[in-house]
Structure formats: C-alpha cells, structure tokens
C-alpha cells in the first residue's frame, strides 16, 4: 500500500493497524502534505511504537505554535481594522482555530486570509499599511493583476512578524466561471467573541470546496479535502438539517458541481458520511482522486502527467482563454527577462 493511501486511512480510522516499518514513509508523506499535525492529533491516545510517540508529540507542539501565531496575527489585524467598523471575516485555517472547529486541530496555518466587503477594500488596505503592513514585492504587473483579476489585494507582509495577510472581497476570482454571492457571505457571517467573524457553516464548506476544486491545481489538496471531511462531520453532527441547508446555499452560489464533487471525494478518501443523493459517482472523480494521491513513499510528487493536466486546468478555470494567453505570455516574458538579469549578474 502506498504511504499516502495509508495516511488517508489512518486519518479516517486512527486505530487501524500500521506495520512497524511503514511509519517512516507515513510520517514523511504526512509532512509533505502538511498533514502531520492533523495526523498527530488523530493519533493522540492511540498506542504507537515507542520511537513514533515523540515524533507525534513534536508535530502536535508545532501545530500548537502555528495556531498561536495565527490567532495573534488575526488579533493584530482586528486591532488595525477595528476603527473602520467593517465586518472582518477570518477564512480557512485561522477561521477553523478561532472558531474552535475540529478542522483546526493540528492544522498547518500559513498566511492570514480575511474577507471584507468589496467597498471597504481601500480603507482596509490603508488601515493595514498605517499599522505597519507593507508590499511583499514591488512589481507593477503582479500588483495590477491582483487588483484587476484576482479576488484579493496584493498580499501584504508585516515585516516585524514576517506574516502575510491576504485580503479578499470574495472567495473566487471575478474571472472564474462560478460567481459566489459575496454580499451573502458577509450577511451570513457568524460573529466570534472578539469582534471578528467567520463564514456560516454552509458557506465555510462552499469556500473549502471552491478553494480545493475551482481555484488552483490541487497541489496540497489532500489537506484541503481533509478540512472538508472535518467540517462536514462536525456541522452534520451539530445540525440535523445541515445537508438541506447546504443544498440550498450551494444553489444560491451556483457552486453545486464543485461542492458535490468535494463531498464525494471526501467520502471516497476519508469515509465522510454523505447522504445518498450526494453520493452518485460522476465521471472524472477517479482522476481527481489520482491527483490528490500523487505522492510517492519518499515524499515526492509523482504522476506527472496527471499533475500537468490539473495545472493547465487551474489556469483555464480562473480566466477566459484570451486573458489566460495574455497572463501566461507576460509571466513567461518576465521569467525570461529575470533569468537574463541573473546571468548578467553572474558574469
């Protein structure tokens, strides 16, 4: 069995048997998929070989520090933005830990992602800059590209803490084929104790599914799919009408296909309980599954052809074809120019 398959099985069923000689590859692959903290939390209290226990404790400790850093970064953003009086929604990993969801347990968290109403973007950017956030790089094209075509400001960094913030005004680029209702995301937001917000449970699942399937080439997608597994389990346990509400919400956002696929993939890989009517297999699921499990026992990405297909797809779903050609041409030209610059510097 490939270690990556063993990883998904163990995340779903932590007490499953693991041969002694399988642990090294398992931990290596979990690290590569940014799932070692989540795995360590799932295995807390489960009997493991003596040399494995300290490695799991180490992964839990690392995740605890990431959680702390993420929450503090959210707090610093809250302090900077509180005077504006606009709702600030935490997204992704920071939202999961801030809301105390099981999806946040052991989760790796990098940048701070927040969503604000589109009309507040300018004021939000100004307030963040006044509080010390700066541009990551000075690059006219990328900057214009972010502002015009993507669903976020160019990323800003806080130099003293070396943390990035991505400020979004919706959850998919305006160029994508699906156009989620951004105003509805804000209107449905759930307040946290400290004045920040998170998406409603249904919107959180919609966002996680779009992030996994409609916004990128699925690199690192297994972690995002595990988020979806955790969210679906927790929300369905807490609210017996959750799946009905999700069905309705998905229709409002026009996000039926990706959310349904995400639910099917979560069911297939993590055994997520999914209602029967959501489970009818659709063509293509097998390819997605192959892509999500494209990692060998040494932690390297494999299945290069599958990955390339998803890379091309990721650009196609984000942009209309003419725009895509323009973007890739400018990217290519810049890369070539950058390389010539380096050659000059070296000679």
């Amino acid at each position: 069995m490939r270690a990556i398959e063993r990883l998904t099985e163990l995340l779903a069923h932590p007490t499953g048997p693991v041969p002694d000689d399988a642990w090294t590859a398992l931990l290596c692959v979990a690290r590569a998929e940014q799932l070692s903290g989540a795995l360590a939390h799932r295995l807390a209290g489960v009997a493991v070989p003596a040399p494995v226990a300290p490695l799991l404790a180490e992964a839990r400790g690392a995740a605890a520090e990431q959680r702390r850093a993420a929450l503090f970064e959210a707090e610093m953003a809250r302090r900077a933005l509180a005077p504006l009086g606009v709702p600030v929604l935490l997204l992704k990993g920071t939202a999961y830990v801030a809301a105390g969801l099981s999806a946040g347990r052991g989760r790796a968290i990098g940048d701070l992602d927040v969503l604000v109403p589109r009309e507040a973007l300018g004021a939000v950017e100004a307030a963040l800059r006044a509080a010390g956030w700066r541009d990551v790089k000075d690059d006219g094209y990328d900057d214009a590209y972010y502002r015009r075509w993507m669903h976020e400001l160019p990323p800003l960094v806080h130099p003293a803490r070396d943390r990035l913030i991505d400020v979004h005004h919706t959850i998919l680029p305006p160029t994508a084929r699906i156009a989620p209702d951004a105003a509805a995301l804000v209107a449905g937001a759930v307040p946290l104790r400290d004045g920040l917000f998170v998406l409603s449970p249904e919107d959180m699942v919609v966002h996680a599914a779009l992030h996994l399937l409609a916004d990128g080439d699925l690199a690192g997608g297994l972690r995002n799919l595990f988020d979806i597994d955790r969210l679906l389990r927790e929300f369905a346990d807490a609210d017996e009408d959750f799946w009905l509400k999700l069905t309705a919400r998905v229709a409002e956002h026009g996000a039926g296909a990706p959310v349904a696929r995400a639910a099917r993939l979560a069911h297939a890989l993590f055994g997520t309980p999914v209602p029967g009517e959501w489970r009818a297999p659709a063509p293509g699921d097998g390819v997605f599954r192959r892509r999500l499990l494209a990692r060998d026992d040494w932690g390297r990405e494999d299945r290069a052809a599958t990955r390339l297909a998803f890379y091309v797809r990721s650009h196609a779903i984000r942009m209309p074809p003419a725009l895509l050609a323009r973007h890739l041409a400018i990217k290519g030209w810049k890369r070539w120019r950058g390389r010539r610059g380096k050659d000059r510097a070296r000679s």
Partner: protein
Amino acid sequence: MRHATSRRIGPIGFRIGSDWRAPVALLDALYADYPVPTVADATVRLTATRPWRRRVRPAIALGGDLMLPDAAPLPLEHGLLAAEMAMNLQVALGHRRHLLLHAAAAERDGRCVILTGESGAGKSTLSALLMAAGWRFLGDEFVLIDLASGMARPFPRLVSLKNESVAELARRMPGARFGPVLQGTPKGTIRHLVPDARAVAAMDVPATPALLLFPRFGAARAVRRVDEGEAFVRLTQASTNYALLGEAGFDALTRLVTRVPARAIDYADSDEGVTLVEDLWCAL
C-alpha cells in the same frame, strides 16, 4: 529511490535516498558504527536535477522533508557534502524536540563546553582538537538542549573540516578516519572526520552545560566576560529553532544563560584556541 540507507545521530534518525550508489556507499562506510533507526525523523533525497543528469555531468539536487527553494545543485563528486548539507537542513528547520544551538561541544567529567559562532569561528577545528586532547566530542554543528532538563545532548555527526584545517587535522590525528578530500566546493576544500569510537558509543549520554564560549579566530588572544543579556541575544541568533519552540525555548534559553558562565574569546591559531579553552575550563 534506487539507493537508500538509514542512520541515527544522537536522538535524530535519518533516511537518505539517492539516485546514485556512491553517496550512499560513502555514508554507509563513514557512519558504519552508528545505529540504524527504527523510525526516521527526517527524510533526505539526493536526486538528479533532470532525469538525464543522472549520467551526463551528474548534478545533485538537495531534497527532503524541508528544502530551500534556491539551494544550488552540487556535482556528484561532492555527494557526501550534499548529504550532510541536506541532513543539517532537516535538523535546523525541522527538529523541535530540543533547543538547537548552532554550536560545537565537548565533554569532560559529565560537564561540557559549548562553542558557538559563525562559520569560520573555528568550531569544527577546535572541537576536533579537543577530541584529540581527550575530551568527548559531542558535535561540531548542533548542540541539542533538552527542554526539560537543560542538559546538552550530543549530535556527533561527521566533523566538517575546511581548508587549512584539513591538512592540519590529518597531520595531528594520524590514526583517525577521514572521508575523501572534496575540492572546489562552495565552502572551499572540505574533508569529513569520523568522530572517535567513544563519541559514537556515548551519543545518547548527555552532559551538563558548564561553559559557553563565543570564539573568534584570527585575532590576538583575548577573553571578555559576556553578560546574561548579551549571551541570550547571541544564542537566540545562534539557534535555528528558538522562535519555533515558544515558551519551552524561552525557559530553556534563559535558564542556560543564567546558569552557565559565558566568555567571548579571540585566538590567533588553533593551539592557542585549545589552550584558552583548557585554561578557562580549569578556572571554573
């Protein structure tokens, strides 16, 4: 991977895979007396930069659990250096069970001297010479401070000797085992020295930190007392994982600098350096 081996150095287990036989064979020979871990903490990969570069002008890309995006590839002749660099990287950026100090250390009577400084300060040479003078070698790259007990755990990897030290140590340690001379590396000429049998056999025996030294090579002999605040700042800079450890790291480091005397030392040549360490040790 086509070729693979596993070794444990102190508390850290490594799994090393390679597209070529030579680096793995060399590791197996030089690390022959080191135990094989049951579970590896870290995976290291030495792979061809392009599939055809396995045979044509073979070039090694450094890989593993953690990688630096701009790490330059190394020629196959420098495979041992590539493996050591990739192993060090996994420890520096990945290990969190101890406070890591970028330092050399040597033990006597259960207590140890810790030598920390930038590359070129003479950590490797001094620790090798202390080993030759009868000290137990604990490591020349990382010292691992136990977060609960404050003890220093050995990480006795191969000693990485550079440039002038290569000939000097070969002359002064005629009975020792060395790796191949690696010429023209990014760090100049490098040769690896295998720690002696005692250092390897006792790699799981920790020592109590007793003296902290900040050596500087090349200046006239001088000793300066380093106060707790300065030692703390210098050691946060010498630690690759201090910021990742949170409060446990803070506790371990403040305890270390308040309990252990610290000195900055300048020395003009390695004999003087060893004498200085011995003098300061005896004055404790």
